[in-house]
């Protein structure tokens, strides 16, 4: 990416970088990879570390690996015939996510001149192993599980999974939760996308406590494609528009003026530019003003010159790219443009090439990013944190359509797309960066470091607060030195699962050992050593709970931390003890957080936080209370 890593402080010339970065192997479960991309050049790289046990499955094609892309496999349980059997990416997504996490620097990267700069990943010296589980038909769960089985055994350090199910499942009925559980047991952290089901509540996917769940937020670059009318008025539009219409103006009509009467359409229907509802003769050679929908294909196929589409204000937080000039404006502006069209006999307009504006409100969680609370364990806060996932430029497969439309035959080496798929590899890359400094840290410790150093987000810009952004906005440089970590072992997750109702027999099968749930009753998830706190209360119930936690000193040997509690007036939170003194690295100290908020009715979310502070390290955990 050309901007997002700088935006989150991981600059190209940072002094903090270790030679051990090249020992880190990032496993990516995705659509495959384009090995010839400059992002995966192995110039100057040594052979893979000896721990690597994977392979490069060429599939009888001209696919090759190198010292950067050290492994590639493909999985195709349903024998999808739409693609050649190879790890090669013909969709683009896997090349994008891989290069975002760990791509090497590529100068003069751009999407038709937009977002120009040096494209790079977080850990350019780290290795990439691609596990192709997604085909043009989708990503099959048997393939995902096979990829986890291999990736764990191959010796990857971090696994990145930018996909998920639309529906929640219990942990051991979900292939990603199963795979990431076994990865965790082997010391491998899995970074997951939270899903694009927002802004609706309980839409978060990939919510297992042993994996990192990543929401998507904006960066300080916004693509603005203005509309200029014949009367000189200019309206701000949001889109990625690389098509230069020059200094001329072009005839402008309203979709509702091109009614296909013979098809029984009406002005209202054709105003949405729905396929078949429009008189295509009236569209050809015109710019068309449409209500929000899928009208762009209608207008393109009818040889329209471009489209101006109106959308609700709150959906203008992401820019999309199209096959021809398109921009997205607000409904208020659309009303004014319609008034102009109706006021003159010869309405004309032009859609300008995108400008890159600086967005002072960034980062904000994008509307489509899935929201908590957690559908399976309401007392584990999800998503865990947020990272850039809006208008991200990264490498692309030149065989793939840049806009996702089959008709779009353009070939690009870089593309700008949005999704929690794009935020997930940012956290993957950050986790790999932390791993390069602390190769022996557990998955939970790396996760904790990323969560407790996250920059707090502003709830005034995200009304869902922690259900949108979790602990906050990723801060990879600080995550290398978190001071304290909330560590958790595989056994801690077993205790958690016992309290969730899993029985000893099932857990012994899952773990393969003699785990037991004896003495652990059904209960809340408050005692899992999680780096955030969530207290769910039945509507009309009492907000009372005690959370037991243990922190491990990973900072200076002699340090004293004091607890700083921020809470709203109607919540009483105490931390006992409120001071923790350490005398050595690796020392553990326990404390309890007691919450009392009285009786709650219809309470969406109350936000508090607990920060351990030693004068230098700020170890911050959000605490949320809400009614279910």
């Amino acid at each position, binding site marked *: 990416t050309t901007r997002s890593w700088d935006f989150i402080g991981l600059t190209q010339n940072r002094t903090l970088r270790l030679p051990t970065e090249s020992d880190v192997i990032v496993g990516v479960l995705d659509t495959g990879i384009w090995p010839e991309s400059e992002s995966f050049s192995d110039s100057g790289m040594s052979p893979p570390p000896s721990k690597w046990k994977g392979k490069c499955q060429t599939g009888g094609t001209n696919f090759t690996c190198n010292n950067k892309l050290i492994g590639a496999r493909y999985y195709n349980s349903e024998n999808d015939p739409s693609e050649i059997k190879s790890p090669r990416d013909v969709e683009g997504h896997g090349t994008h996510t891989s290069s975002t996490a760990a791509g090497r620097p590529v100068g003069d990267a751009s999407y038709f001149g937009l977002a120009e700069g040096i494209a790079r990943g977080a850990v350019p010296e780290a290795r990439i192993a691609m596990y192709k589980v*997604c085909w043009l038909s989708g990503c099959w769960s048997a393939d995902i599980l096979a990829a986890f089985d291999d990736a764990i055994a191959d010796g990857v350090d971090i696994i990145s999974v930018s*996909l998920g199910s639309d529906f929640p499942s219990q942990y051991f009925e979900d292939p990603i939760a199963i795979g990431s559980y076994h990865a965790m047991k082997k010391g491998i952290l899995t970074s997951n996308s939270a899903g694009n089901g927002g802004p609706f509540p309980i839409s978060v996917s990939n919510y297992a406590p042993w994996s990192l769940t990543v929401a998507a937020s904006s960066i300080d670059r916004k693509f603005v494609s203005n509309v200029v009318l014949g009367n000189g008025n200019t309206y701000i539009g949001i889109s990625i528009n690389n098509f230069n219409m020059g200094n001329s103006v072009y005839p402008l009509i309203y979709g509702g003026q091109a009614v296909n009467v013979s098809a029984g359409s009406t002005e209202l229907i054709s105003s949405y530019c729905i396929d078949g509802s429009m008189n295509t003769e009236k569209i050809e050679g015109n710019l068309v003003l449409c209500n929000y929908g899928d009208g762009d294909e209608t207008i393109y196929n009818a040889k329209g010159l471009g489209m101006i589409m109106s959308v609700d204000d709150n959906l203008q937080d992401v820019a999309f790219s199209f096959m021809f000039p398109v921009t997205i404006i607000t409904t208020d502006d659309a009303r004014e443009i319609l008034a102009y069209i109706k006021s003159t006999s010869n309405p004309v307009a032009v859609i300008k090439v995108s400008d890159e504006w600086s967005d002072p409100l960034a980062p904000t969680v994008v509307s489509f990013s899935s929201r908590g609370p957690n559908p399976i364990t309401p007392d584990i806060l999800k998503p865990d944190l947020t990272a850039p996932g809006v208008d991200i430029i990264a490498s692309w497969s030149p065989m793939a359509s840049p806009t996702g439309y089959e008709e779009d035959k353009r070939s690009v080496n870089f593309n700008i797309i949005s999704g929690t798929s794009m935020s997930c590899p940012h956290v993957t890359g950050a986790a790999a960066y932390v791993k390069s400094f602390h190769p022996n840290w557990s998955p939970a410790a790396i996760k904790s470091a990323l969560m407790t150093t996250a920059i707090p987000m502003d709830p005034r810009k995200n009304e869902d607060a922690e259900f949108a952004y979790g602990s906050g906005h990723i801060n990879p440089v600080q995550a290398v030195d978190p001071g304290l970590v909330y560590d958790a072992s595989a056994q801690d997750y077993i205790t958690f699962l016992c309290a969730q109702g899993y029985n000893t027999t099932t857990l012994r*099968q899952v773990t*393969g050992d003699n785990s037991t749930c004896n003495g652990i009753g059904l209960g809340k998830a408050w005692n899992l050593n999680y780096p955030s706190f969530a207290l769910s209360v039945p509507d009309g119930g009492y907000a009372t709970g005690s959370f037991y936690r243990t922190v491990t000193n990973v900072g200076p040997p002699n340090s004293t931390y004091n607890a700083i509690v921020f809470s709203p007036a109607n919540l009483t939170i105490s931390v006992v003890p409120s001071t923790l003194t350490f005398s050595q690295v690796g020392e553990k100290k326990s404390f309890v957080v007691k919450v009392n908020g009285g009786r709650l009715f219809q309470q969406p979310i109350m936000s508090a936080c607990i920060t351990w502070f030693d004068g230098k390290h700020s170890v911050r955990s959000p605490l949320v209370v809400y009614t279910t």
Partner: protein
Amino acid sequence: QSYGEERKVYIVYMGGHTSEGVSSSSLSSHLGMLKKVLPSGVSATDKLVYNYGRSFKGFAARLTDDEVKKFSEMGEVVSVLPNTKLKLH
């Protein structure tokens, strides 16, 4: 084929390896389980899609509804999951 006899891909998830480590015979063990459930004359090797054995236990195979039920009732099986389609985010 009548309803319920159509073969679809299912995941038979059997949890983690025991402390003895990865069983070198996991493939033969999983094929053995399949043979017990499949009707005689149906090749277990042909119906096996994946053998998960490097990092955890289980396999994916083309099964009928009846066969799925039989695996679901086995003590050593944690869950039997249909081969669902997940989406890129």
